[in-house]
C-alpha cells in the first residue's frame, strides 16, 4: 500500500495490465517518450518498448481507427486522447465503427479497445481543455462509460475496463489527477464496472455525482449536515450501464434527488438520471428532483468557477430539495 495520486495509480494500472497481458498496447499523442502531457504513461515506454507504447502522429481518427484494426487482429489497445475536447475527429470511428463492430458483424468480431481521456474544468484550460462530454458517449449503444474519482477506483476501474469484453470510454477527471490522493494496493485488483459507490450514507436526500464534482458534492453534504440535513452521496463510477439499483434504492429511502455534473444541463446525463429515478420511484419522491450542472454555454475561461457546479451551488440545492 502506498499513498499515491490518480496519475500514479492509473500509470500503475497500465503497468499491471501490460505485464499481465502481452496483447495490451498503449498508443496516443505524446504517450511514449515524454510519458503523456499529464505524465500518466510515464516510464511505460522504458519498460515495454516503442512497439507497445506508441507515440502516434497527431490524428485522433487515425489513432482510434488504427486501434479498431488492431483489436480486430487480436491486440488490446489502450488509447489516450490527450484531452476529451480533442476527441471529436475520432467520433465517427467511435460511434459508427468501434461501438457497432460486434453488433454489425453478428458477433463474428469485436473491437475491444479502451479510450482514456482527461475531462473537466477548473484547471484554467479554457474552452478546449475543460469540457465534459460524457452524454455524447452514454447515448451510443455498444459503449461503456467509466469515470473514477480517486486513485483506488482509478486503478481498479481501469483494470476492469481493460478486461471487460466491450469498448470502454474511460474519463479521467484532470482537476483531481494530483489532488485526489489515497492508499492503493500494489499489484492486481479490479473495481467491478456497473457498481456505484455510496460514499456518504444519509437519510434526507440523495446526491448523485462523479469525477471531480464528487468532492464538491461531499463538501456540500458536510455543510448541509451542519444545518441538519443528512445527504447521501453516491459516486456513480460507471456512468453507463448505470448501477441503477443502488441509485433507485437510495432515492426510495430518501425521497429526494439532486444530480450534479459539469456538463451542460440540457440533454445532459442528469436528464437521464432524473428520468430513470422518476420512472422507478415516482411515488417515493417527496420533491421535484434538481440538477446542479454546468450551464448551456460553451465552457468559459475567466468565469469557469462560476460555470462549474461547485459546492456553493450544490449546498442550496440540497437544502431546498430537502425542505421542499
Amino acid at each position, binding site marked *: 500500500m502506498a499513498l499515491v495520486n490518480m496519475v500514479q495509480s492509473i500509470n500503475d494500472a497500465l503497468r499491471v495490465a501490460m505485464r499481465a497481458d502481452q496483447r495490451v*498496447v498503449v498508443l496516443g499523442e505524446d504517450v511514449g517518450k515524454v510519458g503523456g502531457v499529464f505524465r500518466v504513461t510515464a516510464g511505460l515506454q522504458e519498460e515495454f518498448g516503442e*512497439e*507497445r507504447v506508441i507515440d*502516434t*502522429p497527431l*490524428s485522433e*481518427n*487515425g489513432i*482510434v*481507427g*488504427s*486501434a*479498431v*484494426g*488492431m*483489436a*480486430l*487482429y*487480436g*491486440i488490446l*489497445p489502450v488509447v489516450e486522447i490527450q484531452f476529451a475536447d480533442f476527441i471529436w*475527429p475520432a467520433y*465517427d*470511428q467511435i460511434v*459508427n*465503427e468501434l461501438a*457497432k*463492430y*460486434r*453488433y*454489425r*458483424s*453478428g*458477433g*463474428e*468480431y*469485436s473491437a475491444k479497445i479502451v479510450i482514456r481521456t482527461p475531462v473537466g474544468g477548473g484547471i484554467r484550460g479554457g474552452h478546449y481543455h475543460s469540457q465534459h462530454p460524457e452524454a455524447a458517449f452514454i447515448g451510443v*449503444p*455498444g459503449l*461503456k462509460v467509466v469515470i473514477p474519482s480517486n486513485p483506488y477506483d482509478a486503478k481498479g476501474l481501469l483494470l476492469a475496463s481493460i478486461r*471487460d*469484453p*466491450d469498448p470502454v470510454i474511460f474519463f479521467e477527471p484532470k482537476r483531481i489527477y494530483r489532488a485526489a490522493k489515497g492508499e492503493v494496493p500494489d499489484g492486481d485488483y479490479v473495481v467491478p464496472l*456497473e457498481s456505484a459507490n455510496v460514499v456518504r450514507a444519509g437519510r434526507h436526500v440523495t446526491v448523485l455525482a462523479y469525477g471531480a464534482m464528487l468532492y464538491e458534492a461531499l463538501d456540500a453534504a458536510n455543510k448541509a449536515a451542519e444545518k441538519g440535513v443528512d445527504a447521501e452521496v453516491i459516486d456513480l463510477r460507471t456512468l453507463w*450501464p*448505470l448501477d*441503477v439499483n443502488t441509485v433507485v434504492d437510495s432515492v426510495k429511502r430518501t425521497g429526494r434527488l439532486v444530480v450534479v455534473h459539469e456538463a451542460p444541463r440540457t440533454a445532459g446525463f442528469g436528464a437521464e438520471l432524473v428520468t430513470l429515478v422518476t420512472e422507478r420511484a415516482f411515488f417515493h419522491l417527496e420533491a421535484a428532483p434538481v440538477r446542479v450542472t454546468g450551464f448551456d454555454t460553451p465552457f468559459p475561461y475567466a468565469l469557469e468557477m462560476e460555470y462549474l457546479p461547485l459546492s456553493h451551488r450544490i449546498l442550496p440545492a440540497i437544502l431546498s430539495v430537502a425542505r421542499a
Partner: protein
Amino acid sequence: MSPAKSPRPGPAAPDDIISVLRDDGSLDPANDPKLTDEEVRHLYRHLVQTRLLDERFVQLQRQGRIGFHVGSLGEEAAILGSAFAMREKDWLFPCYREFGAALMRGLSLQTLCDNMFGNVNDTVKGRQMPCHYTCRAVGWASISSPVGTQITHAVGAAWAAKIRREDSASLVYFGDGATSSSDFHSGLNFAGVFRLPVVFLCRNNGWAISVPVERQTATRTFAEKAVAYGIPGVRVDGNDIFAVVAVTRAAVERGKRGEGPTLIEAITYRMGGHSTSDDPNRYRETQAVEAWAARDPIERVKSYLEKRDAWSDADEARLRSDIEARFREAVLIAEKTPGPPLESLFEDVYARVPWHLAEQRAELVAGPRAPSSHG
C-alpha cells in the same frame, strides 16, 4: 489506353499506367504475373459469376424482393485480381462493392444471399442492409457504409501483425471518393510512418455517386498522393486482371520485406449506377460508358483464354448454367428462410445483455408487433 481524362494541367505525376494484357492477347513480359491457365480460368469463372450475380441482385431489387444492391459492374478485374494476389493469412477490408472477391475467398453463395435477404441465417443477423455481410473465416472484415472508415482499420490490423512479428498484410478497398476523407489521410500517413504492410487499393472508377473525379481532387492522378506520405504510388489498368494481380503481388512482397505500404490506383469505370438507388443517366453522358465497354475486363480475359484454346463455348455455357442454378437455389432458400427473432435485436450490442436492454427486450416482446414486420 484509358478514356479517363486528365482534366487540368498540374504538377508532374506518375503517368505510367501498368498494363500486361495486350490487345492482341499476348502478355507484356515486364510485369507478367505468370498465371497458369487453370489460375486464369479460376479468375474468369469468378469474374463471370460476379457479373451475373450483379445482374441478378439488381433484378431482385427491382422486383422488390431485396432492399438494395451495390454492384461492381465493370470493376470486376480490379476487385478480383487484387483479392487473388492476397494470401490466405492476409486480411481484406472491403468497401462494399466486393462481394465477388469475398466469394472467391470462400464466402458461400448461400451466406451472401442470406445477407441480401437479412434472414435468420445471415451472419450479421439481419442487422445490416444487403451487401454488408461479414466473413471472419476468410479474413474478411465487417462492412460499414460510411466511406473510407475501413482504411485505418486495415492499417491497425497490419500494425498488430507487425507488433506480433506475424507475416500478414492488409488489403483495403476504397473508391476515388474516399481519397477525400480524413481516414484516407490518416491511414496512409500512419502506414507510411510505421512502414506497415498495407495495400491501399483505390478503385478510380470515375464517380462518387454523381460527383466526378475532378471534384475529388486537383491532382492529375490519385497515385501521386502517395508521394506526400513517403510511399510508392502506382497506376494500373484496373480492367487488366493480369496487371492488377502483378502490382498487388508486388505490393504484398514490399510489405513482407518490411518496406511498408503501397497505394495502387486501379483505373477502371463504374459502368452502372452507384447503387440500385440512383440513375447515372441523370449526371453523366453515355459516350464514356460506351468507350469503357470496349475495354470490358471480363471479355479481355475470355479472349485471352480462347486464343490459348483454354476456354470453349461449351465451358462458357456450363459455367453460366451452373452459376444460374446455384443462384436460383440459394435465393429460393434465402427467401423462404424466416427473419431474425425479436430477441436478436438486443444481442451483441454488448458481450452480455445489460439491464436496460433486458428491460427493453421484455417491453418489445410483450408489446404489439409492427404492422409491416419484414419477418
